């Protein structure tokens, strides 16, 4: 159904996006566990914080929502560093931009692959994370559901910062700084939304949860154009 060759002149933005996701998936699998990087970082981060905080169950349970968001925000920023930089370096981005009038499909594919390759594995282990940090299993699943609602916003924030640093040829440290304004609202409302569920035991709704989804939608509209502009500038 989709043309697996992005050099085809008939490539539509959608098929380009799908091709990018498939290619990134192949690269991640064949490069010996590229998809595992973010998850592994997240696991190490959780282990370190558990050691740092000590084994007290109540203490860990109180910190669990914040640590879940913090670990995934850092892991996604780390995963974002490589998102565009390789395409920029090896010239494939130049080829893609030469043959497509808009980089929209490319950006859509890249953000999707960041979500699938870095955020989704963390989302899958989120319930386990919450349980080992002392949250009741039933509540942990609800908490993980809330967590997934905020992940697209985190990916978009990390992704646009990655596009900027890749365009500039700068390092990842600047990227962490650039994604901060987009990340901080997600952290504030995300931690609040999970706390509502796991500590107050309320249903998966409430204003914080809705604001989290609003952030997804706002970022989806605002941030991708910045990424496209940054990459275009980088190619000039």
């Amino acid at each position, binding site marked *: 159904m989709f043309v697996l060759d992005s050099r085809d002149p008939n490539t539509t933005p959608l098929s380009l996006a799908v091709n990018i996701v498939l290619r990134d998936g192949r690269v991640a699998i064949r490069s010996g566990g590229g998809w595992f990087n973010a998850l592994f970082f997240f696991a190490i981060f959780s282990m370190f914080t558990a050691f740092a905080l000590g084994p007290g169950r109540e203490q860990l349970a109180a910190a669990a929502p914040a640590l879940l968001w913090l670990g995934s925000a850092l892991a996604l920023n780390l995963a974002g560093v490589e998102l565009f930089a390789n395409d920029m370096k090896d010239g494939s981005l130049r080829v893609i931009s030469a043959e497509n009038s808009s980089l929209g499909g490319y950006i859509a594919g890249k953000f999707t692959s960041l979500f699938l390759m870095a955020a989704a594995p963390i989302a899958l282990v989120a319930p386990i994370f919450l349980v080992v940090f002392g949250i009741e299993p039933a509540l942990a699943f609800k908490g993980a559901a809330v967590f997934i609602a905020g992940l697209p916003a985190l990916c978009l924030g990390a992704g646009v910062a990655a596009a*900027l640093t890749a365009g*500039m040829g*700068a390092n990842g440290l600047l990227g962490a*700084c650039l994604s901060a*304004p*987009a990340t*901080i609202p997600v952290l504030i409302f995300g931690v609040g939304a999970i706390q509502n569920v796991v500590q107050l035991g309320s249903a998966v709704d409430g204003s914080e949860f809705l604001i989290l989804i609003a952030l997804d939608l706002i970022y989806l509209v605002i*941030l991708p154009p*910045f990424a496209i502009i940054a990459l275009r*500038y980088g190619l000039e």
Partner: protein
Amino acid sequence: MLDFFANPARFEALSRTLSPWLLASWAILFVIALPIALVFSPADYQQGDTVRLMYIHVPAAWMATIAYTFIAVMSVMAFIWRHPIADALARAAAPVGLAMTGLALVSGAFWGKPTWGAWWVWDARLTSVLVLFFIYLAYLAIWDTISDPARAAKFARVTALLGFVNIPIIKFSVDWWNSLHQPASLVRAGGPTIDGSMLTPLLMMIAGYTLFFAWAVCAGAEAQIIEARARRRSARAPRRILKVDGTARTEQAEGEDG
């Protein structure tokens, strides 16, 4: 209006006439306002003399956000109209904004200790202003890490606009979240809630800070225009090249057209 000042030489001429006036009016205003604010204005019935920190802190915080908004507006102008002066103005505003953000944070810490009992709290207003500080740093870092000014300007624009998301967060942080920081008492629906005896010196201080900002931006942009001209001239100037056999020859460099 926009087209008129698109000529760097014209802007430079305007800035040269305007700068001394801005600087002088800032100095005069500060000479009058500082004694009123720090000595003659009434002490607060609860906070005592600590309230005088307000005259340093509030204008600094105001300038920190206004300077960033200015950078964002200039970036939009540079982005849409390719206005040659807009980038220079934005770049000139950034160090002032960074300094003002730093001043707001430090004076806030000195104010927080006696009133809240803590130098620093991680609440929404303080944290979002700290983020602003780092955004200023990132913005300035872009200008300094990319050596070609035209290329740096492009990425600086994108970064400035991306960071602008933070400004509404700062403004509304005291309304959206429970915060130790007091809500807006100056720019709010229903007018200011400060008594006239304190409002007048505060507004004078704000006007003073703003005049200083205007001067610094003009002077900074002027310096960049002069620097760019010097760069062009040195690129065009004939170069003396020392050959291997020790003789020198002069060569017209193929510089960019000025």
